[in-house]
């Protein structure tokens, strides 16, 4: 189950012709799929396209009505291979994943799909996680489109354009027998906007038709000699067909074509930023009416030579706004213009950054440099926007400006949530390292990767999703008794880690240790279900133990810890795994439910029970400020957001004391750590019972009455000294 309900968003998917859809970009894509008569949708969750998957998994009714098959694929490779249904049948299919990481995983299937080509429209929706807030390597999806000859759509980031891209994308795919990639930047996925909806379309050719009347065509299968024909077909047939389709359907857009003898060629996704830059420089109005000609590439691959030459003809220079590197489009433009014999100068990475996100600041300064070269009279130097204005020297020194705050503003990277069950695993590992010294730790992808940051500072490499153990494969030798430790999440485990990591370790006789973090969800992507999820799911098979799977591929040494917060047990099992004389791969399955999801599930339930007058016990932790000496070792072994600091109430102590704030969910780690690490006696657990039974209440009163007798004696003594 996803970490929140999308019931409200699902209703938007029902909108009919003429009604206005208001919502997020990625939901607009979802609606557009249904409007396009899609037969099946598959994918693997991840920012920024998780919501597409989450909304569809809450939209079973609509999918059933329309006859759409929806799958949570095991991996992006599975998702991409799912598009094979469109090879022989006129079925429209869409898959989605995070890029470039997901596209990397999918690329084998995508290459095979692109080689043979498709009959039904095949759309690959890739959510770009590039630039500010990104959690992955900074690369472009563009190269995948180029290498496999798939067409790449990069529409303007407004909902009508994105919806049109989905609809035209299917048509383009069918017209050219080629899978089409639709690239959406993270902000476009999360942009709130509106568009006028159409009715959903139930596909005429159904999955049932395909299954009952199977078709095969050996010329579509990637084997010689067909594979050689495919390559020729891509170049001779599909490519020109694509260019023709793009021209005829005006997928690319030109604005203010003849306004100037210079112009800007931009990726569709860069349109809003570019227009804002022009607006700030006084070269466009708020509606995008530009004083500079714009050629907007809503299709960034392939380029359409006649369109390019038509736009560039008669222009002294063009600026290419192409985010990321390498500068594929810019290089391509050079070649096109050279071949066409046009003398138009191409600018791009000479005035814009070669690498990194094209923020409004970067684009504004690039556009300014470009326009300044071709028509400096257009620039009102007195009215430059602040972002490209040279700093005023007089005021800079006086005020505590941005630079003066540098020492007071710390980076605030993401970290484990309050009560996260993964935190104690690393706390325990810290304690083990105190005894055994540091180990080589190979990390994976998932929330647990936050271990590499303070306060844990654990982990040396991360090689990709599910590749935690594979990342330590070489470090396996009998020359030492010291072992390496690898971490893998349950998501990565089922994605591929079972084979790439565990199977590999068994086969290659690894003597090292793997910890599988089993928190019942793919937590980092929003809490979607996986085979080992502990909750029942009527549409998916869950509750499959990871330990069984691990034993199934031949691991003998398997330990399951059913409560990661049990620090002594966690520590002892880690120590045992790292020191046991037993040879062979060792796997520890560390289980506890993702706290974010657990709280979303449990909190309302408890509130309801309390309201209904039922006995409910709630726990939270606290720190006694008079025994806390303010050395904060507890925080250095935890980092929990609810374990923080405050000024000491003691006038003698200068250092802040630790404190537990109201967000505490009572996971118990603080107390466990204080004991296991022999830290300090300041932690207490408060168990608060709502609606206690009559007997419990009487007993509690009796106890307190006895305690009061002794407390009064203490109080009397203290009254003498403290007043």
């Amino acid at each position, binding site marked *: 189950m996803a970490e929140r309900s999308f019931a409200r968003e699902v209703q938007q998917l029902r909108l009919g012709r003429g009604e206005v859809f208001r919502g997020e970009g990625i939901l607009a894509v979802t609606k557009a799929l249904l409007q396009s008569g899609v037969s099946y949708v598959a994918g693997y969750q991840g*920012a*920024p396209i998780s919501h597409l998957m989450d909304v569809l998994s809450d939209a079973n009714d609509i999918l059933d009505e329309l006859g759409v098959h929806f799958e949570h694929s095991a991996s992006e490779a599975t998702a991409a291979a799912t598009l094979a249904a469109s090879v022989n049948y006129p079925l429209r299919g869409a898959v989605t994943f995070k890029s470039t990481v997901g596209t990397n995983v999918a690329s084998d299937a995508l290459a095979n799909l692109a080689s043979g080509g498709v009959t039904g429209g095949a759309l690959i929706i890739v959510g770009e*996680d590039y630039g500010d*807030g990104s959690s992955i390597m900074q690369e472009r999806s563009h190269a995948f489109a180029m290498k496999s000859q798939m067409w790449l759509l990069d529409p303007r*980031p*407004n909902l009508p354009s994105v919806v049109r891209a989905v609809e035209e994308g299917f048509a383009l795919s069918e017209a050219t027998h080629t899978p089409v990639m639709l690239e959406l930047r993270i*902000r476009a996925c*999360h942009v*709130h906007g509106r568009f006028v909806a159409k009715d959903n379309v139930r596909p005429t050719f159904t999955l049932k038709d395909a299954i009952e009347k199977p078709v095969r065509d050996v010329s579509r299968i990637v084997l010689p000699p067909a594979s050689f024909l495919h390559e020729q077909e891509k170049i001779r047939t599909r490519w020109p067909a694509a260019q023709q389709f793009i021209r005829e359907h005006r997928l690319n857009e030109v604005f203010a074509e003849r306004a100037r003898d210079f112009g800007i060629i931009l990726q569709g996704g860069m349109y*809003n930023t570019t227009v804002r830059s022009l*607006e700030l420089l*006084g070269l466009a109005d*708020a509606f995008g*009416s530009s004083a500079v000609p714009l050629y907007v590439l809503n299709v960034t691959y392939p380029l359409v030579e006649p369109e390019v030459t038509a736009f560039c003809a008669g222009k002294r220079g063009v600026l290419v706004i192409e985010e990321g590197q390498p500068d594929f489009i810019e290089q391509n433009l050079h070649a096109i213009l050279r071949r066409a014999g046009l003398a138009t100068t191409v600018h791009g990475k000479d005035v814009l950054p070669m690498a990194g996100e094209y923020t409004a600041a970067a684009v504004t300064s690039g556009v300014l440099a470009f326009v300044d070269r071709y028509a400096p009279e257009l620039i009102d130097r007195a*009215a430059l926007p*602040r*972002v490209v204005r040279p700093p005023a020297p007089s005021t800079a020194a006086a*005020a505590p*400006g*941005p630079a*003066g*705050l540098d020492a007071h*503003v*710390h980076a*605030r990277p*993401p*970290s*484990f*949530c309050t009560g996260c069950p993964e935190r104690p695993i690393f706390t325990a590992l810290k304690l083990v390292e105190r005894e055994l010294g540091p180990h080589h730790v190979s990390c994976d992808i998932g*929330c647990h990767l936050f271990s590499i940051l*303070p306060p844990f500072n654990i982990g040396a490499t991360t090689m990709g999703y599910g590749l935690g153990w594979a990342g330590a494969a070489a470090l396996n030798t009998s020359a030492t008794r010291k072992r390496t430790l690898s971490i893998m999440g349950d998501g990565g485990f089922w994605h591929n880690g079972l084979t790439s990591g565990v199977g590999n370790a068994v086969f290659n006789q690894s003597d090292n240790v793997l910890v599988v973090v089993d928190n019942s969800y793919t937590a*980092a992507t929003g809490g979607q279900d996986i085979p080992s999820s502990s909750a029942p799911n009527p549409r998916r098979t869950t509750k499959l133990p990871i330990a069984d799977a691990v034993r199934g591929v031949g691991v003998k040494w398997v330990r399951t810890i059913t409560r990661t917060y049990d620090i002594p047990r966690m520590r002892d099992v880690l120590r045992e795994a790292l020191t046991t004389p037993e040879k062979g791969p060792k796997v520890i399955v560390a289980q506890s439910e993702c706290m974010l999801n657990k709280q979303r599930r449990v909190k309302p339930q408890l509130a309801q029970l309390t309201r209904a007058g039922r006995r409910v016990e709630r726990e*939270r932790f606290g720190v006694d400020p008079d025994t806390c*000496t*303010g050395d904060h070792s507890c*925080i*250095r072994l935890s*980092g929990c957001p609810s374990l923080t*600091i405050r000024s*000491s109430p003691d*006038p003698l102590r*200068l250092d802040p004391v630790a404190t537990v704030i109201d967000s505490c969910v009572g996971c118990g780690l603080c107390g466990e750590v204080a*004991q296991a690490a022999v*830290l300090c*006696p300041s932690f*207490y*657990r*408060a168990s*608060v019972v*709502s609606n206690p039974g009559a007997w*419990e209440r009487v007993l509690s009163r009796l*106890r307190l009455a006895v*305690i009061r007798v*002794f*407390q009064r004696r*203490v109080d009397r003594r203290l*009254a*003498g*000294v403290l*007043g």
Partner: protein
Amino acid sequence: MSARMEAPVSDVGTAPRPAPLRATTVAILAMGGEGGGVLADWIVDVAERDGYVAQTTSVPGVAQRTGATIYYVELFPEAPARAAGKEPVLALMPVPGEVDVVIASELMEAGRAVQRGLVTSDRTTLIASTHRVYSMTERTAVADGRVDAAALIAGAAAAARTFVQGDFARIAEEHGSVISASLFGALAATGALPFGRASCEDAIRRGGVGIDASLAAFAAGYAAAAHAGRATRDEPAATAPAATAPATIAPAPLPRVGPRLRSVAARVEQSFPPTSHPILLAGVARVADHQDERYAVQYLDRLERVREVDRQTGTGDFALLRETGRYLALWMAYEDASRVADLKIRSDRFARVRQESRVGDSQVLRISEFLHPGIEELTDILPASIGRPLRRTGWIRSAVDRLTRRGTIVTTTSVGGFLQLYAIAALRRWRRHSLRFADEQRQIDAWLALVTEVAGQDYPLALAVAECPRMVKGYGETHHRGRRHFEAVMRALPRLRARADAAACVRRLRDAALADESGDALAAALRELVA
């Protein structure tokens, strides 16, 4: 608590140009899970109802997991768009210098907005909650790693056109709601966006979750921002809220002492300088609380010599006396098992836990302590004649170790658990005969002797030495480590004393000892200074 400042639009030295129609821009800086998205959605909802085209974007991603993130909203009036027959093109990210409203859900995030250039004096209304959510760096520091809140506030005030500040987290909490609601109220009060209060409240109602609490927090946030005083940008100091300043700076009222300490307190007032009274009275109370009145007398006896040497060599503010008084009290009131037990069983402690845990009258509270007494802790509080042999006897050591390895959880609200702690607390009476007491007194005297001896020769160095016990904190291994660091610095002292900057060296060593847990920084500093 909250203040609002308005500065004249600064003349940035540019020629006036006709104001073209442009989008109104709003950036919300928050941490994942704080409801920044909810606030953005409310703004969009109000805007769309009140005739605006609204667009919001964010890059949540993994920042959802407690990281810093920005939600960005643009608004554009629908009427001119309709007249033009065109849709406005709205941007997906804030441009430095082009933001009308910045809302920061926490003080450091306000600093981040300023740092990113989003807050500018010609244009930006900055609404910031002045409460602190401490960063990992601040929280994990061995001593006090907190950044200067006043500097953040001053920086924010200097950068903004209008600066509205208040503890909107507390306001929300007081009304059982979340900070997005109180900030939304503050936003409505600023009038920075063209929406009336009623429209904003309607948006909350349409949101449908926790409506009453949200509306109450909204109203309180509105009031805090609307009724706050106005100041110009040139007087940021007037607005620094006392609550965010470190507690140690505010002059505290003189600590009260009980009737049995009256003569000791009188001695403080008669024979010690007034600047030392707050600390010395607190110190007297602390050591008497820890042991008895006799101990308090001993505390003052020990300080007599320090007072004398301070009078002779100091600058008249008795800094040496005060700081020695501070650390002497903390050292004499060292935390052994009976002290901890004594603090755990008190009635005011029970009351504090009840309050912190928000226990209602009809609810039952159970308090459990996480204790981990080992052989050291047990023999610490036993009479030396018993403790010393016990500590040396191997089989007893290992037996106790086995018994105490997993630690123990004591339920102080049960009669049995309470009496257990009560009995341990009662060992206070025999503390003077305990192993640890003798140890501590010996070391205290050595340190005091050093302070007074050094003071005659190098007053600043004596002050630095007086502050060195700050390195010794915590319990168990943490305490031992602190003690080792303290001793290492003391050992280095003879070689440092010849230097003119000896005091600075000792402070540097102390800071190095507090810089990390491992002692690497201290070792490096020692190598550099003493080698």
